[in-house]
């Protein structure tokens, strides 16, 4: 990427405001002390330490592993539900209603229930992530399937395309952008949710280590891990999802 793209992307006014916030933060930290609000240099030093010790990889890796399973399963189930919704109008209505109920269910319900069901294990955050991201991804897929242009399907009928061909040539390409958009939102949600679920009962992951840092009064480490989380989120968004959606819609421009 060229230098000019970077400067355009970083956007100077934003940087100015960020600098101002850091300055205010620093001033406040002097007033309230390291336990309440650690100073920016302490956070940077903490970040350097976890990168150097490799801790940043173990905990990020543990969180991403749980997300990969919970969120991955949610995507697979969402696609299957989409397929069902495509095959039957009746199923579409049922799926739609159930997703509305799931959407209305709080994260905390799933965290508590999964601790009861799975105990203090890896499966609690995985299950929570699955239940929270499923309705987001699935609603998108079902909406995409419902939005497939009937006129294109009729064209397929006129030219006697097989059911499979109509599915791969018409339904899948028109639904894919919806799936990717749903996955983008779902992944962000997965990261936020699984970290919360990690507070309970597991001994690795960003959520665990943040809570642990709080308990041992290392407030600067709470900030460090928050920064790590933001970095993971931003990077996957920019590198993975933006690239994929750009590639998928190449034909649009």
């Amino acid at each position, binding site marked *: 990427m060229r230098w000019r793209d970077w400067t355009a992307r970083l956007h100077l006014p934003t940087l100015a405001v960020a600098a101002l916030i850091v300055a205010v933060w620093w001033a406040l930290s002097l007033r309230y002390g390291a336990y309440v609000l650690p100073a920016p240099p302490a956070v940077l030093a903490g970040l350097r330490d976890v990168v150097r010790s490799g801790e940043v990889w173990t905990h990020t890796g543990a969180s991403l592993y749980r997300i990969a399973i919970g969120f991955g399963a949610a995507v697979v189930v969402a696609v299957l539900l989409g397929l069902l919704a495509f095959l039957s109008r009746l199923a579409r209505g049922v799926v739609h209603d159930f997703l509305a109920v799931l959407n209305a269910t709080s994260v905390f319900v799933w965290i508590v229930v999964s601790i009861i069901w799975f105990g203090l294990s890896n499966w609690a955050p995985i299950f929570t992530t699955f239940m929270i991201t499923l309705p987001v991804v699935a609603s998108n897929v079902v909406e995409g399937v419902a939005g497939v242009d009937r006129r*294109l399907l009729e064209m397929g009928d006129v*030219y006697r*395309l097989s059911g499979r061909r109509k599915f791969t*040539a018409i339904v899948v390409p028109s639904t894919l952008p919806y799936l990717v958009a749903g996955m983008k939102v779902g992944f962000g949600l997965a990261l936020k949710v699984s970290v919360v679920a990690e507070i309970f009962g597991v001994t690795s992951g960003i959520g665990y280590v943040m809570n642990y840092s709080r308990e041992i009064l290392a407030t600067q480490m709470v900030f460090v891990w928050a920064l790590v989380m933001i970095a993971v989120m931003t990077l996957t968004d920019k590198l993975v999802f933006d690239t994929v959606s750009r590639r998928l819609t190449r*034909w649009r*421009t």
Partner: protein
Amino acid sequence: MKLEVSGVGKDYLIPVIDSVSFAAEAGEFVCLLGPNGCGKTTLLRIVGGIEPATRGRVMLDGQPVIADQRHQRRVGVVFQEDRLLPWLTLRDNVGLVLTPLELGAAERRATADRYLGLAGLAGFEDYYPGRVSGGMRQRAAIARALVIEPDLLLMDEPFGALDAQNRRIMQNEVRRIWRQTGRTIVFVTHSIEEAVAIGTTLVMLSARPSRVREQIRNDGRVERARLVDDLNTMIMEEVERQQGAGPPGA
């Protein structure tokens, strides 16, 4: 392929088509004319087996056309909109309809390219529909209809979305393609000038519920200008009749 439409009617909430009968020999270019809303598109869809008729039947070379039933005949349809898949190149759009014919990939590609060339799109095979003009998209849709070597080619106001100049060009193109391929064509239009310019048989439908008002052979024996005048008079009568009838139930 010989086309016989006998006593075809269609009711939705109200009768739209009362009873329409006409016949066309193989290789004829039939233009369906009539006031707006008289069921021209519906009739075309019935002929193509896309929609069932309420009454009557359509025969192609003595075989009945029944909606939603698989048959051996090949029917190409050009819709009012191009109905191209925006995520496929023009070549892949045309090649797609060859997939049920069990050709190899290379042969599909070559055939698609040949018909795109016939439609004046040589050099644009790798373009996505969104990157070419509306006229070119409609040409690609025509190439797609022709590539299956249809026994019957149905066209539903295919140039409705085009400007006058492109329309004229496309009319000439279709006329040329028809002469080169000798397909039986049924072409719906609301433009009398268009019908007289390209059709060999003109079928004028009456106001709703429609019947055949007049079937005219356009073989040059009647002077074109006079034919256009006569048809204009007829269509105005029908339009008045339809409006005079008022909304159904009133």
